[in-house]
């Protein structure tokens, strides 16, 4: 006994006629159009937009349902996304087709200078870094260096406030291709400091 058509299915039919069995050849053609259109569109295709391209009398939702069934499990599947349907490559293939591109970050100047001062003056407090750079230092710069594993706390200085002392890490040596901190050129080779033997 044929079931009565689902009223919800017939709603989008512009002519309002009952959802008669579509001509199979016409439906196959509609499937072809839908596949090509969804492929070519730069955004998800909503049923209303799909209907514009389909032959009259074809229910776009029936076409979408059929297309979803045929592409399920295929390398490219029809999926519902915000605003309609779109083709997406199967998630299991992502590792094979994506290419990881290394985009190394560049350290901002303040961070680079802070790192260099820590390397040469460690263990050193934030106040001392500020003194050496002659400029104030934001906590976020230290935190960024800490997060990248280039510096680590080295206890606290026994002065009022007990500020943290900072030093470089093995990761720092690795990043700059150093075997040991003693591989760093001497400070005097880099910059001629005014005579201050006490600070040596």
């Amino acid at each position: 006994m044929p079931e009565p058509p689902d009223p919800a299915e017939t709603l989008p039919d512009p002519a309002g006629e009952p959802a008669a069995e579509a001509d199979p050849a016409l439906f196959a053609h509609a499937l072809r159009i839908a596949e090509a259109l969804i492929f070519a569109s730069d955004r998800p295709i909503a049923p209303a937009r799909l209907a514009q391209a389909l032959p009259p009398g074809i229910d776009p939702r029936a076409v979408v349902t059929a297309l979803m069934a045929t592409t399920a499990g295929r390398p490219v599947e029809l999926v519902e996304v915000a605003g309609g349907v779109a083709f997406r490559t199967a998630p299991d293939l992502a590792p094979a087709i994506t290419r990881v591109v290394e985009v190394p970050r560049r350290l901002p100047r303040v961070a680079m200078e802070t790192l260099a001062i820590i390397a040469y003056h460690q263990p050193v407090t934030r106040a001392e870094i500020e003194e050496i750079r002659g400029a104030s230092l934001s906590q976020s710069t230290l935190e960024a260096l800490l997060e990248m594993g280039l510096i680590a706390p080295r206890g606290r200085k026994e002065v009022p406030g007990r500020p943290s002392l900072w030093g470089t890490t093995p990761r720092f040596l690795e990043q700059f291709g150093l075997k040991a901190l003693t591989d760093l050129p001497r400070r005097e080779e880099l910059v001629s400091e005014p005579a201050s033997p006490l600070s040596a």
Partner: protein
Amino acid sequence: MTQPVLHLRLDGFEGPLDLLLDLARAQKVDLEKISIIALVDQFLAVLEQARRVRLELAADWLVMAAWLAWLKSRLLVPPDPEEEVDAEALASALTDRLAELERMRLAAAWLARRDQLGREVFGRGAAEQLRVEDRSGLHADLPALLQAYAGARRRALARRPYTPKHRKLWTVQDALARLGRLIGALPDWAVLHRFLPEGLTDPVEQRAALASTLIAALETARGGAIELQQDRAFGPILIRRAAPTEAMPDARAA
């Protein structure tokens, strides 16, 4: 009534070569076999008619007309062996130009007949991002680190002379008071540096404090409250509370 039509037609041509090609086609023969003389006559006739409609004509049309008239005259007279330019060669160069323009027209038409992307065929409209950026790496090398250090120091040092800093110098009185306070808790020899005030980072202030502390220590030692010792020149200066019960060989040395 034909004149305004002609006027409009001339405007429709993209330059004299375009018109020449059109006239050559009208000869309905292979471009290699067209009659240059007939072509020149037709071109000049069209131009003459156009000039009757309006006197001004673009310079390139007139240049072409003059050149063609000259070419025709050379083609009509028997070839002169003394002549530097060969009229036949010029005529064939013109034919070649027309043939090349014709070929490019055909090539454009061939391209126009092809299925074009975005018109007759379509590619993927919404490409998927297949690049995953790994930003965990760090772009920093040793030269950059050293440059940063040198740059920071140079700037800090350069700034110094312009902003003379108020120095709070550690006086001998300050040092005497501190020494007197600390000496009581001193169990054994301790280096003089330990009696410097804390928190001094400025090298000059550190040096001044060291000097005043040394003077204070010498003053206190003279009073007999402490002993001082230095094993060698520029070696560490040691301090301890005077122990009257002990023999003091070191005091002589100091």
